[in-house]
């Protein structure tokens, strides 16, 4: 609990990520931030500034070279690969710029995949939940289609449904509208915004799109791997 009654879900302290090699590169430098439940946070910055790298670190896809990260009150930087995989499965949902669906599986199977992996619900309930999630996103009539039979916007909605499959604490989105036309972008933006404001989810999204960023409550600007500004949306 913070002082103002908000619940903190994600915290990073002095997180640095360096790539060793012939020419060492610092992707993220000394980043500290805290994100509360129900926040819609946009991470912005020029190309190559390290905003995606920060997202991968906060999404536990990558491990920091130094610094600590807490998720849901638990320090995750000390955990093993298996434990981290489990946390990703239970508490995090990802949406990427390119939809990243499994092309051999139907829309429904793609959404059911994380639930099957978690194995918490019986198969029938997994199916019902996947159908409900897809229906909420206006995909009720596309369940049996394969991803390559869908438009970009539809695929991104399937990806969002899949990210929501295990009812995660935080949804991490890496340029979710980067590959979409303006109408689909607006649609995806509205869906994520609704998840935050009506579904009490937390969304952390990297974006280039100022429109998208304006939908969020808070904007973090990254320049050269450092957090330059971090503040509420200037209304």
């Amino acid at each position: 609990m913070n002082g103002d009654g908000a619940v903190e879900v994600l915290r990073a302290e002095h997180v640095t990520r360096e790539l060793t090699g012939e020419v060492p590169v610092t992707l993220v430098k000394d980043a500290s931030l805290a994100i509360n439940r129900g926040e819609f946070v946009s991470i912005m910055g020029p190309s190559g500034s390290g905003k995606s790298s920060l997202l991968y670190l906060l999404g536990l896809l990558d491990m920091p070279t130094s610094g600590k990260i807490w998720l849901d009150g638990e320090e995750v930087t000390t955990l093993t690969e298996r434990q981290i995989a489990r946390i990703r499965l239970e508490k995090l949902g990802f949406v990427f710029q390119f939809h990243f669906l499994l092309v051999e599986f139907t829309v429904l199977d793609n959404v059911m995949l994380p639930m099957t992996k978690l194995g918490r619900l019986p198969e029938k309930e997994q199916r019902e939940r996947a159908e409900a999630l897809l229906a909420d996103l206006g995909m009720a009539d596309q369940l049996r289609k394969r991803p390559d039979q869908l438009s970009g916007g539809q695929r991104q909605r399937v990806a969002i449904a899949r990210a929501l499959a295990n009812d995660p604490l935080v949804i991490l989105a890496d340029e979710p509208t980067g590959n979409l036309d303006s109408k689909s972008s607006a649609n995806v933006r509205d869906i994520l915004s609704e998840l935050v404001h009506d579904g009490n989810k937390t969304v952390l999204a990297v974006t280039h799109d100022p429109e998208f960023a304006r939908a969020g409550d808070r904007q973090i600007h990254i320049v050269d791997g450092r957090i330059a500004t971090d503040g509420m949306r200037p209304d």
Partner: protein
Amino acid sequence: MPLTLKIAVTHLNSRRRQTLMSLLGVMLGVAFFMAVSSLMRGSEQDFIKRLVDSAPHITVSDEFRDAPVQPAVKQFPDGAVAISNVKPKTEVRGIRGYKQKMAYIENIPGVRVAPVLSGQIILTYAGKEQGVLMNGVVPELMSGVSDIEEKIVAGNMQALSSNPNGVIIGRALARKMNLGMDDNITVSSPVGQVRTMKIVGLFETGATAIDEGQAYVLLKRAQVLLDRPDRANMLVMQLDDPYASREVAARIEKHIGYRSRSWQEASESLLSVLLVRNIIMYSVVSAILVVASFGIYNIISTVVMEKRRDIAILKSMGFTARDVRHIFLWEGTIIGLMGSVGGLTLGYGLIWVLSTLRFQVPGVSVPIEMPVYWGLDQALIACAFAALSAMGAAYFPARKAGLVHPVDILRGQA
């Protein structure tokens, strides 16, 4: 169905042609393995059968494995004085008390025994002389221990009993000496006995050395001709279970003292040739399966390369390196198992085709059949080898897949 298996099946299903090709590789490997193994094992069995059927399983001869210990040495085993040039006592050749020894052997279950007294004699006919090995036999007992009766092409073995002056010779010898059935020939033995005997049978084994060089007479007549009354110099045996010969031979030798040789001992060098042949055969046919496993390695490596994006997404979703590894190991296992089952069917089909083949060789009256072996053990070996090599081939790409770092893929894409 585990999720990893489901994903594996979907992967294989979505590239049917590649999957089919690698399946075909394993199938052909297993099938050829089985066909070649079946032929080799079949011919080996055929060979051993011929070896075993034509010769006695155990032969007790009138000699000892080791020379008997001299009484003086027995008396003073640690004597300071060595006695040299001791000449052993002269003994009448032959198995002493062969009837008692036979009685002992007859009591062993599953063993048939017959006495034989063999020795060199000279056949004389129309001025031609031919030395042959004469076997004195008891016709009634001989049928239980030898297939010579089946090789008789004129007359029969029993004729020896009804005519004690009868002799059975090989057809090749008869042709060579211009002899026919019921002809009389002169038989002379090394001890100076000379008799006139009548040809009452002709045999043909196919082996020239035997057909030209052996003759059968009644045991009693042989004892007279060789001047060894009441002696036999061989006890020949056949067993219901030829493979027990070694043990039975050892038991008999231990009891009666005379050297008894099993067919295995007599044809040790041949059997070791068979072993070498088997080793060569199995390494060659295994090579087929190894080559097939390279095909599997290839397809799974390709799938791993193509599926790097999927691997990244599965990992970001919460799949561990182990889960990812399992997906590709499943793929190898599926190909290995399905290929084995298909190969088994194809293999038995091939064996069946081989078993129906007949070759007519010029100069041989009976067409040659392929001796095939239908045993399940070779199929199991083939399948186990195929499944293992398929899994082995899948292991390396699978391990590589497990090590895929999602961020590397995401960075490359974004």
